[in-house]
């Protein structure tokens, strides 16, 4: 058995195990070393990814495929994990938490996400999803001194378990209907099964799978767990979940639905489009009333999920390409926001939006960058989000779903409301009397700068990334 096709995953999981193994022998003062080890592992996995073939060859008895999409998602997850690792150092050490275990779980979760993205079979996809989910449940509940974190972990666990059960039931129905677990064969068989008298069950199966994946990516109306889980989780974990867990959900959607169920796209396309409109509207409208910045960002991420779903709903190659592009933009904007929030909440400073009053005068750079990331969320020209939304809207129009394009535009307008309220608090409101000192950690600053560079690059010279995402989406729609 040749495991050469999964070297990046092997390296990452191996580093995770090494971290757990070394953790008891590393003193409290040297915990930082474990963090460096995790960073090294992620970088090594990234390098190994670059050496993997990307010609679309199927490996490991049909379990995985090494195509451009695999490369894309592996690199996406690894970059996100790298940024999160960088800004978790300071966060964990301030709270006297165990760096080794946190980093190990982060490595395991990322491994799961990568396995999901390269899967070419239902079974490996499901196992990867579970590895990601279970590691993230623990990460959410990681702050054991905080009740909020526990509550969030429990909520995430219960909802995630329900979603897993739904997915498993849907997948078992699909296996029963088609007699195969291989993703490339699925669609044809399902389409054939549709012609039989019991064809209705195909829709039940597809519906269950879609609902379960909608749970995982927190699309409305399956998003209700997300704000609580995202608010209560340790802040770096919130960022990680929003980017990696949700992108992994999209990877599963692309593999399983766009490719696997391709022949049925006329039907699920409408469902997903409806879901997208509902999700972005619910997310944006609810975000307007939020007082807590993490909770606001949670709803804003629900809205972003809605935009991204639109790209998949149109079921064209261009649609998937713009989805991928938007995922890069989303990664940098989100992790940038979280780097700022972590820098601000480091020393007993709150997470309420009111706590941001006067930030523009105290730390203009931080406030400026946060504004930049918000601008990217909204889709102001010259930022990553603008190019991303442009791509999505274009794809929707090309895919004969102009109303979806209108939905995206209207929603972007709505979203200005809550981003503006934070910006106004930062730049216009006076500095409160009892404001503590703000000190960003070195790792946090690095990831902040990287995210900002990413957002600006994607906004100003998007061609390279645009080609990358188009190239990665080449084999998706067959």
């Amino acid at each position: 058995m040749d495991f050469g096709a999964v070297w990046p995953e092997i390296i990452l999981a191996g580093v995770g195990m090494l971290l757990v193994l070394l953790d008891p022998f590393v003193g409290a003062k040297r915990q930082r070393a474990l963090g460096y080890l995790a960073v090294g592992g992620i970088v090594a996995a990234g390098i190994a990814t670059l050496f993997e073939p990307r010609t679309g060859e199927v490996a490991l008895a049909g379990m995985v495929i090494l195509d451009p999409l695999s490369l894309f998602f592996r690199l996406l997850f690894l970059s996100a994990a790298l940024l999160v690792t960088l800004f978790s150092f300071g966060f964990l050490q301030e709270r006297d938490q165990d760096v080794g275990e946190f980093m190990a779980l982060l490595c395991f979760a990322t491994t799961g996400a990568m396995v999901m993205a390269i899967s070419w079979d239902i079974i490996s996809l499901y196992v990867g999803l579970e590895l990601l989910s279970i590691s993230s449940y623990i990460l959410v509940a990681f702050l054991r001194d905080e009740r909020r974190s526990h509550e969030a972990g429990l909520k995430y666990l219960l909802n995630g378990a329900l979603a897993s059960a739904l997915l498993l039931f849907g997948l078992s129905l699909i296996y029963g209907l088609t007699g195969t677990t291989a993703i490339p064969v699925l669609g044809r068989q399902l389409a054939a099964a549709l012609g039989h008298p019991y064809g209705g069950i195909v829709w039940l199966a597809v519906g269950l799978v879609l609902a379960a994946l909608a749970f995982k990516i927190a699309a409305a109306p399956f998003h209700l767990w997300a704000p609580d889980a995202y608010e209560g989780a340790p802040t770096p974990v919130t960022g990680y979940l929003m980017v990696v867990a949700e992108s992994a959900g999209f990877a599963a959607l692309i593999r399983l639905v766009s490719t696997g169920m391709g022949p049925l796209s006329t039907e699920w396309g409408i469902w997903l489009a409806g879901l997208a409109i509902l999700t972005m509207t619910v997310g944006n409208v609810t975000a307007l009333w939020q007082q807590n910045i993490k909770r606001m960002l949670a709803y804003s991420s629900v809205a972003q999920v809605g935009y991204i779903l639109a790209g998949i709903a149109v079921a064209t190659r261009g649609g998937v390409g713009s989805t991928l592009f938007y995922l890069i933009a989303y990664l940098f904007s989100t992790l940038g926001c979280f780097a700022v929030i972590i820098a601000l909440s480091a020393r007993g400073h709150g997470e309420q939006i009111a706590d941001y009053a006067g930030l523009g005068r105290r730390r203009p750079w931080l406030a400026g960058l946060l504004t930049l990331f918000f601008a990217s969320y909204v889709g102001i020209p010259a930022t990553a989000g603008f190019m991303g939304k442009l791509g999505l809207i274009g794809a929707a129009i090309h895919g004969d779903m102009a109303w979806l394009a209108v939905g995206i535009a209207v929603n972007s307008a709505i979203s200005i409301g809550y981003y503006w309220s934070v910006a106004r608090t930062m730049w216009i409101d006076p500095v409160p009397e009892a404001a503590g000192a703000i000190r960003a950690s070195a790792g946090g600053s690095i990831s902040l700068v990287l995210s900002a560079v990413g957002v600006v690059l994607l906004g100003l010279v998007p061609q390279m990334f645009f080609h990358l995402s188009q190239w990665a989406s080449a084999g998706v729609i067959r």
Partner: protein
Amino acid sequence: MNWPMVAFVVLGGITVYSGWRVATAPLVTHAALFLAVTFAGVGGLFFLLQADFLAAVQLLLYAGAVMTVVIFAIMLSEMKDIEEPRPRGWLGALRSPSLGALPFIGAVLLFAVMLVVYLRGAPALPVTPLPAPTNSTVFIAGALFKIYALPFEVASVLLLAAMIGAIILTRVEGGRRR
């Protein structure tokens, strides 16, 4: 009526009945024991299908190990009778887990769907024929370590992560180390 059929009906009946009792037993310990009976019944059904390895593993892991863990979980938590709130209104009566019609209808529908899929679905489509079940152990080993080697390995990482998580979440010394 042949003997395997009789055995199937008896085992199936026991499994379904105890499965229902798991949901409706007022005492959580009873529910746990009914769960054990359900697992054992499923194991028996596997034996009837000549999937003897699967049956033995079902008994070993579910009726044995999982039940032990469930029982310990019950013992370590607070013991209380689960009191079902009195159903209010006709909708409440419909929804109540032990009395209501809704869970029953849901279960019957699920059952019907699965019956249709498994009776009609597979034969209509090309299915790779399984080897004759002379030695299912060898077959399972081949599937697990050759075809599904990657999911198998990922599952082992998954279990490791879950174990680490359980230790992290239950460690008693109050959040701080050293």
